[in-house]
């Protein structure tokens, strides 16, 4: 099997994630789609790392994971805050700067 297949799979997952961000309204699901895109990028990094016999790609994927963890913590806190003030996690309802 050609290891380029991993890149195709990652591209497919990234595309699905991007389409999900555009299609879904629930802020939590939009966030999950962003996570999916980050994971697809990580798979690309790992596959390239293997193709070039170089561990730097894995380091970058590792940092991506850390950044994703930080992003999830803050993002979910913002979603909880939005839900508290608007009683809905839909991105359509958050259309006003101030209630």
């Amino acid at each position, binding site marked *: 099997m050609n290891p380029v297949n991993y*890149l195709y799979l990652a591209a497919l997952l990234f595309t699905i994630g991007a389409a999900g961000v555009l299609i879904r309204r*629930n802020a939590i699901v939009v966030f*999950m789609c962003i996570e999916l895109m980050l994971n697809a990028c990580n798979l690309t990094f790992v596959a390239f790392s293997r193709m070039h016999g170089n*561990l730097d790609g*894995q380091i970058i994927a590792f*940092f991506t994971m850390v950044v994703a963890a*930080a992003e999830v913590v803050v993002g979910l806190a913002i979603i909880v805050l939005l839900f508290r003030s608007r009683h809905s996690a839909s991105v359509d309802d958050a259309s006003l700067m101030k209630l």
Partner: protein
Amino acid sequence: MNTLAASATSVGEAVQFWVLGTVAVAGAFGTILMRRAVHSALCLAGTMIVLAVFYLANGAYFLGVVQIIVYTGAIMMLFLFVVMLVGVTAADSLKETLKGQRWLAAACGLGFGVLLIAGIGNASLNTFTGLGAANSAHGGNVEGLAQLIFTKYVFAFEITGALLITAAVGAMVLTHRERTERAKTQRELSELRVREGKHLPPLPAPGVYARHNAVDIPGLLPDGTLSELTVSKTLRARGQIRDVSSEALNDLAALEQRSEERLGRETGSHEPHARDESKDPHDSHDSHDEEAAK
């Protein structure tokens, strides 16, 4: 294992790729197509576990384990926590605020995917070194990564630590609610209840008037209507109240129907027996429920 798995692609890996790749794509589609956020989260967790297996197959042993521990273990569980906080049954609204946005978005996604895949297809990606040498240079994958993190990427590593602390503090600041007034004492609360003059005793328990004792079944008032007060506020808000007020009447009607049929065929002496028999399952069911509740 270190050198073999990372330096060549075997038939076994191809089989694994096609089987698990299908699962990963199915999970991704499930994430964006499931109506409930919980199902989306579970589909995404499945996709992430499959990706962890792919990392392991690609010789990234440390990342594969970290993927399972950090992503499926911590991040997805955080997602599930928030889904529970926000409301499990809060399904997405299907009302479109922008007309045709869904189809346009799907078309955009399709175009983007074609672009990406065509780009990969056009690139000349014929180098394949394998990770065998890189993994064994310092004695293993973890040692190799540690060597890089603590020498070449040490500043990035330190800044990442600062980022994590900032994120933790930020999350606490965002979700913290300052108490603006003193909390009421128990005496003040009881005086307030008496002054308001409604519900001095505790709220009525659910289902007690309706021969059921599940919490989602409201008690019945003397006139047979539901008493919304008997069901918890959360269930009321979610609309998960089960109405069984007509069940007793339906049971009675069914019973009469059955006994009529039996009477039509046989003599009347069997009627009380039939009534006992048909009532029996209900009685045993109820007592079973009571035992479980206790």
